[in-house]
């Protein structure tokens, strides 16, 4: 980030104070100005939409997520781009996020930091990834899915990919892995939908990894019609693995790194590096405990103007700095993708 990450290295991501909030605001305004200066496209967009001087966090202009699908937005020297993250778009259009080394490095640094601060875990753990190993030939472009487990791999060691290249579950290898690490805390990670589908196939197995921890994210949309929800998901994990320490996270490829972990009370939390604002359909601040559009703010994006984004997800804010889990920050719930209203028109949406 523009302000060197080291500057924030020692502060606790989940203990807030007035000074930290002031610091966050100062940094985000600086970042916004930086992007304005370094991308004519970004400046052109926001000059038409935001005509007032920014005095409060909710006056920071935002871009809609879909814009990253049809516009290439870069605010670093394009020669410095060394990695492009791509969202897993189902409609053919994918978001493209352009990263330079600096930006990529702050993504993983922040991720590790907030993980440690959130869970109080400082040692690397043997890691089971509910996925297959990535295609090593593809170095430049990365899917959001790969980016997710790559980011989290800094928390793990002795990696075990549960799927082989043909997407078969490597059950025998899993047994060996678990036997080897029988008395250790294991870190399990994967996309919610991938984990769910693997769990459906894991018949007649029972393991006991009671003290281990699972982090999953990516949402329930793909598996909604399979009766998948948090309750069922956690129940199956308890039955098959005796796993209880399970945490969802909310995040997207546009703000990789500064994700929102779910606490023991079932709420996602902002950290020192992030903020959220829930907005109504006029884009005014939504009332507490009311459903609205989620805007996410992050200090990380420095090579593209993704520091403030209005998503197409619905969420509800429940409070700030007083969650009963003990961590500070805003805490909220996510209700999934906004309903696509019926678009009428002369064109057939489904062709032929």
């Amino acid at each position, binding site marked *: 980030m523009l302000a060197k990450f080291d500057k924030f290295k020692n502060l606790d991501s989940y203990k807030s104070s007035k000074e930290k909030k002031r610091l966050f605001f100062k940094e985000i305004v600086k970042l916004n100005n930086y992007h304005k200066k370094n991308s004519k496209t970004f400046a052109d967009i926001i000059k038409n939409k935001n005509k007032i001087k920014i005095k409060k966090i909710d006056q920071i202009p935002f871009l809609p997520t879909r*814009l990253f699908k049809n516009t290439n937005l870069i605010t670093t020297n394009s020669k410095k781009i060394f990695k492009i993250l791509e969202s897993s778009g189902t409609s053919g259009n994918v978001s493209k996020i352009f990263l330079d080394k600096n930006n990529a490095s702050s993504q993983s640094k922040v991720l590790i930091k907030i993980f440690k601060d959130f869970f109080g875990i400082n040692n690397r753990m043997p890691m089971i990834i509910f996925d297959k190993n990535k295609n090593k030939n593809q170095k430049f472009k990365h899917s959001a899915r790969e980016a997710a487990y790559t980011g989290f791999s800094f928390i793990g060691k002795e990696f075990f990919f549960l799927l082989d290249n043909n997407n078969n579950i490597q059950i025998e290898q899993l047994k060996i892995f678990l036997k080897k690490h029988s008395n250790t805390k294991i870190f399990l990670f994967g996309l919610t939908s991938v984990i769910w589908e693997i769990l459906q196939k894991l018949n007649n197995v029972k393991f006991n990894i009671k003290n281990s921890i699972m982090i999953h994210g990516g949402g329930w949309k793909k598996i909604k019609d399979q009766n998948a929800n948090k309750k069922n998901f956690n129940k199956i994990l308890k039955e098959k693995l005796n796993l209880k320490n399970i945490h969802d996270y909310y995040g997207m490829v546009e703000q990789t790194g500064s994700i929102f972990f779910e606490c023991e009370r079932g709420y996602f939390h902002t950290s020192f590096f992030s903020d959220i604002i829930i907005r109504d359909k006029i884009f005014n601040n939504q009332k507490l405990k009311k459903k609205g559009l989620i805007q996410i703010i992050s200090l990380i994006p420095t090579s593209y103007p993704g520091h403030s984004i209005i998503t197409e997800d619905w969420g509800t804010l429940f409070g700030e700095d007083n969650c009963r889990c003990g961590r500070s920050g805003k805490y909220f719930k996510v209700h999934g993708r906004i309903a696509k209203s019926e678009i009428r*028109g002369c064109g*057939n949406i489904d062709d032929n």
Partner: protein
Amino acid sequence: MIIKEKDFFNFKFKSKQFTPFNNTICNFINDLSKKLLIKFDNRDSPDIATLAFFCRSGNISNYKNNFNIKKKIKKPLGKIFHVPPNNIATNFAYSFIFSLLLGNSNIMRISKNLLNHSGKLVKIIDELMKEKYKNLYENNFFIFYDKSHEINLKLNLICDGRMIWGGNETVKYFKTIPTQPHTKDIFFYDRYSLCIIDSEFVNKISKKKIKIIAKNFFNDTYLVDQAACSSPILINWLGNKTNEAKKKFWSAIYFHLKKIKYDKVFSDYSAIDKEVTSSTFFAEKSDYVKNYKNFSNMINIIELKKIPKNLNLYKGKFGLFFEYDLKKLSDITKFVDRSCQTITYLGLKKNELVKLTNNRNLYGVDRFVNIGSSLDMNFIWDGIDLRDVLTRNITID
């Protein structure tokens, strides 16, 4: 007759035609008009009311009389295959009724993802034929299917004419499907539409009048999420004192939206969609932007300094409009292309429009209608008179 996808391949399609505007057909259409008025509530479904109004006996006999004046021997084309758009509830019905009135037998592709509205409409049409018009029932078919290449292949080979309503992708797809050498095609491709308003006219009119205009403008645009080909995307202003006129016009729209509680019902999705379209435009065409106005995410207006090429690529929906000041009417020839379909107008005289159409540089525009009539359907659509193309002339010398 309604045919299910699974029964399709064992089904033998009859195709008996009638003479255009034959009594049986006209009686059926009149009966349909009455049925629609009973079965639908006018206030909830103004589009059905418009359809019923089109089908009323006075209107149909007018068309019939005009048709017969020409004193030509006219026969229907034969068996017509229709691919109507899914998403304008009444469109398939117009496509069917136009073709039927001209004596054709019809095969309608009906999407399984129908608006509730059109499902009910198909049923009413089908039941009425079944009860009272056996002859029509046995020669007109509604097939419920979506993406079946096999069904398309078969139907395209047995029809004498095709009515394919766009998008362009659908048109392109059907152009690759083989038909008989004699099969006639009518393709409706992606279109966009404009509006032209005379400022002085707006500045002069009464409060009562502007309220009616606001309601009419709403019906052209918001009623169909501004997504119909004939809903205007660009509002052009003529004359002096345009600022005063714009203020009066958009305030009237705003009050109408408030009055019908549009602020309560419009979706979060539409707000986001407008945010995406406007941001994309600002990113790609910022040199063209004069100003951006946003009234509570209900009315969003991008004022333009000049008109970019392919403005229709940034087609606004849910009440996102471009706005432009014309120096003179003929200036529209500078940016109107072949895809421009309808111009809705306010305060312009007919002779001015006739003069405009005589302008050699006017490459597009098929239709000028008053604000409020953009969605009205007629035998002439996209510049094509269906009474000519869905029939054939027999000459005897």
